[in-house]
């Protein structure tokens, strides 16, 4: 059976480009960049070369790039640094949104316990926040604003440039979790008025275990991991050179291919959305247009998402869901609840996220499988029976 991997928002397969960029640093160039000898300095040069190339891809200065172990680390470091530096000036207020990734949400929850006050902006039914919302939430004691570039579940792209402008005008540090955006849509930290931005390599065919934090010149950045002087004293630990080289190569490839891949992915995405919407009592989650090229997120009423995933997996289709059973708690995804979906509906969600490795045939196979599996599960669902009998009202 052919495996159809459509969970690329979770992680992607490494590209040959990334693997090839990686191997010299696993074999020949094994030095510690902090060593003074030739072997070490060769490694050091490789990192600085990667830093310059990486910076160019998001229109940053090389000195503004700090390599980390993952996107979550970059988010954690940015948020804590901005919060504590705000606190030094007596600022204890943070603005964010209700549907951030847990790397941001859980860090903010901890900061709340430490005495910070966080305003979580509500998200519209279509999964968007506005610059006006952000502007209204800013107070004289606001230390930090954090709004994700694109949502990891429903793929909605936020008006980052406008939000950034509002933050810049107010003189408040603006952080964005851009893990789902970089390598998928054009990101320009200068034009977008971004102060801090988190990136993760494995979302664009790079390796796991490496990410980056962009921190604009002049914005103070505290170390999160203490130790050696790596990353200009902002991130101790011997550098993951192979990972950094591979991430940079993967991002260069993603950015170079973006015009082609973006058009292709949008075509796969739109055909799948149109096909799945033919299933009665289904809905698309998140704005249809302000949406990542590769993201499809649907709800099917009367069924639970885990069963849907398992049955699709049995047919070789690897997807994702925001159901409670897949989140490990009794509540379905906080993102689906944030856009106002009732619990009952949010349990029946399906996320399909494509990559350049997917094909039209994959969409055909998904369009064949999902309606059958949904019908099968509905047929044994007492919720669906009650809906069909009119004992319960359809919510979608």
């Amino acid at each position, binding site marked *: 059976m052919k495996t159809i991997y459509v969970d690329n928002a979770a992680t992607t397969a490494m590209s040959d480009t990334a693997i090839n960029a990686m191997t010299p640093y696993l074999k020949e160039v094994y030095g510690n960049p902090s060593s003074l000898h030739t072997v070490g300095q060769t490694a050091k040069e490789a990192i600085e070369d990667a830093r310059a190339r990486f910076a160019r891809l998001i229109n940053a200065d090389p000195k503004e790039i700090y390599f980390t172990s993952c996107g979550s680390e970059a988010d954690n470091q940015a948020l804590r640094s901005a919060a504590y530096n705000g606190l030094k000036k007596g600022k204890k207020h943070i603005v964010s949104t209700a549907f951030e990734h847990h790397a941001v949400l859980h860090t903010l929850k901890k900061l709340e316990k430490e005495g910070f006050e966080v305003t979580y902006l509500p998200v519209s039914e279509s999964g968007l926040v506005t610059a006006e919302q952000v502007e209204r939430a800013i107070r004289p004691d606001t230390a930090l604003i954090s709004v994700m570039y694109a949502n990891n579940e429903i793929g909605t792209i936020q008006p980052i440039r406008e939000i950034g402008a509002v933050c810049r005008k107010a003189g408040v540090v603006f952080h964005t979790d851009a893990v789902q955006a970089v390598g998928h849509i054009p990101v320009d930290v200068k034009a977008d008025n971004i102060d801090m931005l988190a990136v993760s390599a494995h979302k664009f065919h790079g390796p796991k275990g490496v990410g980056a934090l962009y921190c604009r010149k002049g914005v103070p950045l505290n170390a999160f991991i203490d130790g050696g002087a790596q990353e200009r004293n902002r991130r101790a630990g011997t550098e993951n050179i192979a990972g950094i080289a591979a991430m940079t190569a993967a991002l260069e490839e993603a950015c170079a291919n973006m015009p082609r891949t973006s058009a292709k992915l949008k075509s796969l995405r739109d055909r799948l959305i149109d096909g799945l919407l033919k299933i009665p009592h289904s809905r698309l989650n998140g704005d249809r247009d302000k949406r990542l090229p590769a993201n499809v997120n649907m709800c099917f009423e009367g069924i639970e998402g*885990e069963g849907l995933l*398992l049955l699709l997996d049995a047919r070789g289709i690897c997807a994702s869901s925001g*159901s409670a059973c897949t989140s490990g708690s*009794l509540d379905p995804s906080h993102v689906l609840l944030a856009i106002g979906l009732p*619990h009952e509906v949010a*349990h029946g969600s399906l996320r399909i996220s494509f990559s350049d490795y997917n094909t039209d045939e994959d969409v055909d196979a998904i369009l064949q499988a999902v309606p059958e599996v949904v019908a099968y599960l509905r047929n*044994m669902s007492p919720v669906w029976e009650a809906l069909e009998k009119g004992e319960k009202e359809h919510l979608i």
Partner: protein
Amino acid sequence: MALYSEKVMDHFTNPRNVGKIDDADGIGEVGNARCGDIMKIYLKIDNGVITDVKFNTFGCGSAIASSSMATELIKGKPLEEALTLTNKAVAEALDGLPAHKMHCSVLAEEAIRAAIKDYYDKNGIAYDKSQFPDPHED
């Protein structure tokens, strides 16, 4: 998928006794859609013996597998014996469930009890109320 035992996957992908019984003698429904699990059990009872049983379940893989296994375990059994079925027995028969899925087997036990209680109530049969604690709201 390594999350579940082969038995769970078997009962999930080929569930036994799916459906409804139109002239059921007892029907039990437990759980709620808000939490993502609802089980509905239909019993056909003859002379105090469960002659047929069907289920409908809204829920995850382990909820469907637990319903399927529980119906298999009580089919053809006298009511007194069906009442002794525990969630642990259902989980064991499935070669175990992940810890955070054990509530699915609890739901199966409760759905069967609720269906038997419904039968007793409908037929004015006296029973020991302590045998029928209120189902969990989870």
